[in-house]
């Protein structure tokens, strides 16, 4: 799995949507995904993410509750295989140091 997966909002699509709706939702999905990634990377403020979510019709409070729950389940499952981890860790020296120590010990490793 990619590390961002627990923090992705769901897609607002049903089988009734047409191709134009899907293209629009794809664009919206890309924008909020980049914003949320930026929040975890420390390059975008949480308030900016909440504004983006709210503008797209997503309740920020409910969203972050869901993210907390997803992270709890991921921790409970002891998930250790993540894509994109190097990019995340490279943004935070302290985080990188801790994680690289885990990488060295074979406890946490990139998926591919």
């Amino acid at each position, binding site marked *: 799995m990619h590390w961002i997966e*627990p923090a992705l909002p769901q897609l607002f699509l049903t089988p009734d949507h047409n191709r134009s709706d899907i293209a629009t939702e794809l664009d919206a999905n890309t924008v909020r995904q980049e914003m949320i990634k930026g929040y975890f990377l420390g390059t975008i403020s949480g308030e900016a993410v909440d504004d983006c979510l709210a503008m797209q019709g997503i309740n*920020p409070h409910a969203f972050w509750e869901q993210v*907390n729950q997803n*992270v709890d389940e991921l921790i409970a499952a*002891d998930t250790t295989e993540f894509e994109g981890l190097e*990019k995340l860790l490279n943004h935070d020296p302290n*985080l990188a140091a801790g994680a690289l120590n885990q990488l060295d010990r074979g406890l946490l490793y990139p*998926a591919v």
Partner: protein
Amino acid sequence: MGRRRPYSLVLIGARKEEARTKYLAFLAGRANRPSRIGTNGNRPASVALGIEPFGRDLPTGVLARASASVDALTAFSDSISVTGRVKLAPGTTRTGYTAAAADTDFLKIADFTPARVIRRTYESATATPRPSEITGLIYGYRKSKSLSAPIGKENATDTLADALTEAVADIETANGLVQVFLKDEEV
């Protein structure tokens, strides 16, 4: 227009920061939460897959290396949004999927991570009140399981919108217990 709950922005901020701090700490291996670890069983095995990126052309005989858990591949084995968009390693078999041609190499592409279709299945439509371990605030908890699979181009004209159209069709018969997510491709 409804009135905002008192301190609602503070509450949102607390939950947001909790999620970020907890997750980054876990990723860095610094979380100390032994009470739940291992309660969901052993870690699922992972399968190497090959995909054709949407946003980058690869030479003939080369596919980008990706992976998915055995559980995810099984769950998506009847979903055409995934089955036609990944290849198994040459010579291997798995129900619903096809293997890459015999001389195909799966290579790790620098700075590339594939698009992934994510399917979250909830056990119940009803949420159970549950207190946050950090803020103590009550929130609605629904137990769920999330599985994801990488996807790439099925053919020269295939797009993410095509894949998404097929992925969303999976929701139709799920009685509101399934949500679909898409992680964009990073090239």
